[in-house]
């Protein structure tokens, strides 16, 4: 056997992982795998916890998208207790969901992904980071750091905690939005909207075109996609039905409770996360084979942009049309995730503004009281990294007896592995590679923002 390359930690992602590339005697890639080392066991230690406490526990699954877990969880608890949140409560939750996306998108584009594109994939690794960007373009860096923090602080000023929130409760929300806050947040969000429009323009004019050749070859695989859409097929990150689209563009739509009919999970002995796959596609078979993958689908922004028929807001719809003019649907090029993410950034600003201009948003009827009862509930929202599925069963005393969760990046475990192998084969040939080549393998991972 040939040499083994251990790339660890995978950097500028949001978790812990190692890539192992196995070369053969000719120095070509025999195999490459993406190993994830983290397993905290939430599904086990949530057993026995009070149902109403769940949204305050499972937000710790992710410190970058705690709001999304918080909201998926609270939707599951609503269903267990059989309670419908008040209209204002639903709008407040939705507002929190859209606001939480804004700093997340800015973080990923500018802090994590941009160094590869703005400074170049082969730059000295010591400067290939956000500090390097700050040195190369101090004015932009200042603006980015400021805008990301400002967007996060809206949620913090309103609800105390932006990281690991507590305000969503079974039946509704714990605190209303006051008129004074509404005005202030509306002003701030309009500034974010301007910055979002600048960002996508900047990316389309100055970032993406330079690397179009890389986009066409790096990490490219052909898969299906998962996303959430409204009844009429419009993009939605808070509520709707799940759409699972095949690589050829045909799809099945289903309600949350039916996820087990459509999604199976494969366990591989070399990584902790399971690999969800579409079990109705290939007679229930699963394969990571690059030439003939079976059951593989992807989540996150590109998946949502592919699965939706249209965006819910005017500027984002224009951006979607522009995107679809250039790429087929579903778009398969992995690095297009970055572009899709920015379309969603624009959409989230627009939807936040819409909600902040809705007269009902400052309503005071924010919670339907709940009574303890046994039940089952599946709560879903779209996290930036993909469809969150929180599936809980509670007993008659209001304690969790069973929990199953499929979280955003888990959907992407299988496709990331395929992209890693594809990228490794692309950049390592005849034993020749340098740090820039290895970084390109990581770029294929970063596109998924795991």
């Amino acid at each position, binding site marked *: 056997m040939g040499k083994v390359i251990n790339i*660890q930690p995978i950097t500028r992602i949001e978790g812990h992982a190692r890539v192992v590339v196995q070369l053969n005697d000719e120095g070509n890639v025999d195999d490459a795998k993406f190993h994830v080392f983290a397993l905290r066991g939430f599904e086990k230690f949530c057993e026995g916890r009070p149902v109403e406490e769940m949204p305050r526990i499972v937000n710790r699954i992710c410190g970058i998208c705690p709001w999304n877990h918080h909201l998926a969880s609270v939707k599951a608890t609503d269903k267990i207790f059989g309670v419908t949140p008040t209209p204002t409560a639903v709008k407040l939750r939705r507002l929190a969901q859209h606001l939480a996306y804004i700093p997340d998108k800015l973080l990923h584009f500018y802090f994590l992904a941009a160094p590869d594109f703005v400074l170049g994939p082969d730059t000295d690794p010591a400067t290939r980071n956000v500090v390097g960007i700050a040195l190369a373009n101090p004015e932009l860096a200042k603006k980015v750091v400021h805008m990301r923090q400002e967007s996060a602080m809206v949620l913090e000023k309103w609800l105390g905690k932006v990281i*690991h929130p507590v305000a969503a409760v079974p039946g509704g929300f714990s605190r209303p939005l006051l008129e004074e806050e509404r005005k202030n947040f509306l002003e701030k969000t309009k500034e974010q909207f301007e910055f979002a429009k600048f960002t996508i323009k900047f990316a389309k004019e100055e970032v993406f075109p330079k690397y179009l050749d890389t986009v066409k070859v790096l990490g490219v695989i052909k898969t299906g996609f998962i996303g959430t859409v409204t009844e009429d097929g419009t993009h939605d990150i808070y509520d709707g039905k799940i759409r699972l689209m095949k690589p050829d563009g045909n799809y099945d739509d289903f309600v949350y409770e039916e996820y087990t009919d459509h999604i199976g999970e494969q366990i591989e002995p070399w990584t902790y996360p399971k690999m969800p796959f579409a079990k109705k596609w290939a007679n229930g078979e699963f394969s990571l084979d690059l030439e003939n993958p079976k059951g593989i689908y992807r989540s996150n922004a590109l998946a949502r942009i592919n699965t939706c028929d249209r965006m819910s807001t005017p500027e984002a719809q224009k951006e979607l049309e522009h995107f679809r003019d250039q790429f087929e649907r579903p778009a398969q090029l992995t690095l297009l995730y970055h572009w899709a993410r920015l379309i969603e950034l624009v959409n989230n600003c627009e939807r936040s503004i819409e909600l902040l201009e809705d007269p009902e948003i400052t309503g*005071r009827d924010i919670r339907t009281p709940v009574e303890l009862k046994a039940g089952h509930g599946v709560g879903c929202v779209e996290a930036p990294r993909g469809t969150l599925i929180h599936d809980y069963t509670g007993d008659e005393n209001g304690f969790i007896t069973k929990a199953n969760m499929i979280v955003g990046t888990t959907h992407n475990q299988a496709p990331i592995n395929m992209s890693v192998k594809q990228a490794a084969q692309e950049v390592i040939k005849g034993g020749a590679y340098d740090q820039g080549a290895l970084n390109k393998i990581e770029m294929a991972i970063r596109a998924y923002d795991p």
Partner: protein
Amino acid sequence: MAVKVSSEWLNACSGCEISILNLGDVILDLIPEKIELVHIPALVDNKYFGPLGDGTKLTLPKATVGLLSGGIRNEEHVEVTQEMREKVDILIALGTCATGGGIPAQANIFSNDDIFAKIYGDCPTHEPAGPPTEVIPKYTENVKAIDEVVKVDISLPGCPPHPDWIKAALLALLEGKTEFALEERSVCDTCPVIREEKSAGGAAIKRPLENYEYNPDEPLDKMRCIMEMGYLCVGAVTLAGCAGQTGVPRCIQARQACRGCFGPIRKGAKPLVDMMSALASIGQDVKTVIDRRVLLNRFCGAHGNLRPLPTRKK
């Protein structure tokens, strides 16, 4: 010359790292002139096994300050922690997972076998299987805080720690100090709500199935203490500081009860015992707190505070 800082995350969620970013504009005053980030996987491309991935030993660079977030869950976490301890002068345990185990240390009420049996053996989306065993690091016997493995110089708890404290600690270190600690006082000491210290009625502690009674147009100092309304709030046994140097407790701002995310007020304190007397002082019985062993140790399950319950002999 800039002070070298090295940072790692272990059994964690990356919320602590986002809290660092929430320093906002201050970051660019510190970096790169005053602080050089030599290792931080979230932001900087430095590798354990060298830039070409051909090293054989996990290696971290030398630095003056080391930041570790997350608790210890597997053997690689132990290795990273020991390597960082060797390579830095001052080691900071950042966040409640690092200082006390945090939410993931609730796993300590179960054995590792039970955890794997559930995760891989009892799930509606696949047939039962065994846990993965290749390449990935083995679980440690339980979830540990950093100071159970190496000496920690500074503890900055919080879930997440407030950016004010991260900034204050870094600035203190930049001035040449080697110590920094939060003041030992309770969340209640910093909470503005009305406390009358009279009996909450002696009934069983209520579950928060409806919102607490308050007028949203009035400030927090017009709202009654949540514990005195008859619900559980663990501010009395929780270290203050969640809202930074100036604010009022963050969950209270959202009109929600404290659940203890900064951990116990003093190292080694037992929230279960301390909460008993706090509740007794208003005529309530800790035994009526549901799921009390886990709820009152929600953020501090390391240090032996949470363990598997002995199985009953049949």
